[in-house]
């Protein structure tokens, strides 16, 4: 998954909330999703077209966590997003 690129599916609208968190609306299913601070960071990375590796680096820098910890968090969320059909692999 390291150099993998995932991208938001069409018709997902992201909104910043309370400075750090975020909300996703899937206009295909009309479902809301709430992203915590780390989730918002990951989503914003996806929107910019960053690879998984790049997003992991951003998380490490933002939260001063180990590479393994960052990677596990990122991959867990990405799996979640993918299973909810909010992102797709490029």
């Amino acid at each position, binding site marked *: 998954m390291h150099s993998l690129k995932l991208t938001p599916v069409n018709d997902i*609208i992201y*909104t910043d909330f309370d400075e750090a968190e975020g909300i996703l609306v899937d*206009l295909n299913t009309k479902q809301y999703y709430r992203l915590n601070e780390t989730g918002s960071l990951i989503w914003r990375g996806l929107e910019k077209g960053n690879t998984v590796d790049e997003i992991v680096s951003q998380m490490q820098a933002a939260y001063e966590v180990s590479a393994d910890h960052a990677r596990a968090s990122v991959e867990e969320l990405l799996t979640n997003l993918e299973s909810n059909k909010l992102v797709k692999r490029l």
Partner: protein
Amino acid sequence: MPARDFGSRRLTVELTNICNLHCSYCLRDEDALYHTPANFLLPEFLESIIKQAKEVIGIDHVAFTGGEPTLHPQFDQILAVVSTNGLKTSFVTNGWNFQKIWPTLAAHRDVITHAAFSLDGVTREEHDKWRGDGSFVRIVRAFSLCFAGDLPFLIKVGIRRDTFERLEQFALFAARMRAAGLNFGHVMPTSPEVEESSALNLDERRGAEQEVANLARIFKMKIGMDVGYHNVNPAPACSALAGYSCNVDYQGRLSLCCNLSGFRGAIGEEDVAADLRIQDFARAYAALSIIAREKVTARQTRLHDLTTHELPVDLYSASPCLFCLDTSGKLPWRHSATESPMSSRSLPVLGAVG
């Protein structure tokens, strides 16, 4: 028949004349919206009006409109005025600025009962066609903020030729976006072109109103019609005519309601009672009450005459809003150059029978 419940007494206030969008069916005067310097109602003046209105008629709610009320540069102070005077508030908005003003709304969350968003379609294409590119995404972001921030919101939809066969779609969309309510309202005929292209005829309106009633029965979410629907009850048809609400326009004038105020293409301002910059609220409201009573009486007379002569109730008599518009100089295009708008009160002359 039990008296209708118009809710608590309230004030509608136009915070500004300007808007950042250009919806062709808007009922506000085009010059005021786009070609007149921006006028923003001052917080101090608003406070004076609120205090007087509380004392004179006991308002407990102020609803903000415009133009686009969230364009007011002192929106924060405006909400603070409502708060310090112990009232609640709501506002109607196109949603464009909503993300920008969210911190202000969050700071005054306790005084805001809801936000009301105007929606023209349930897809980007449909909504943006009327409101400009990017409008749909902005309004959905606004819904998101309301949902996450626990701020109830309503969606308002105009019933027009392009929407009246898709009311259920709007209801499904609003429900899935977690709107607290959905209000439909007939588009106002601001010109013969709008009437021709967008407004429904009498039968179509009644069909749409029946569909709204059906949707209201089916959905858990509150669904209703804004006043203006078919109503031949001679009692005061709306909160304004019943004395439960009144409007302050962006120039500080007290008028009957926000539908009539600054109506696009109007030549009359019979709905305006007084200028609150120079007249106290009590006297202005007394003048407004006379205007309201006269409107109610005029409509009662019209409906009575139609019944007495066994004539069908036409569209402009059946809809209280259209009646008020038609008899207040708001629809000059409906009347010839030599005919006074007030002559729409008179009935066709009947020949002798036999």
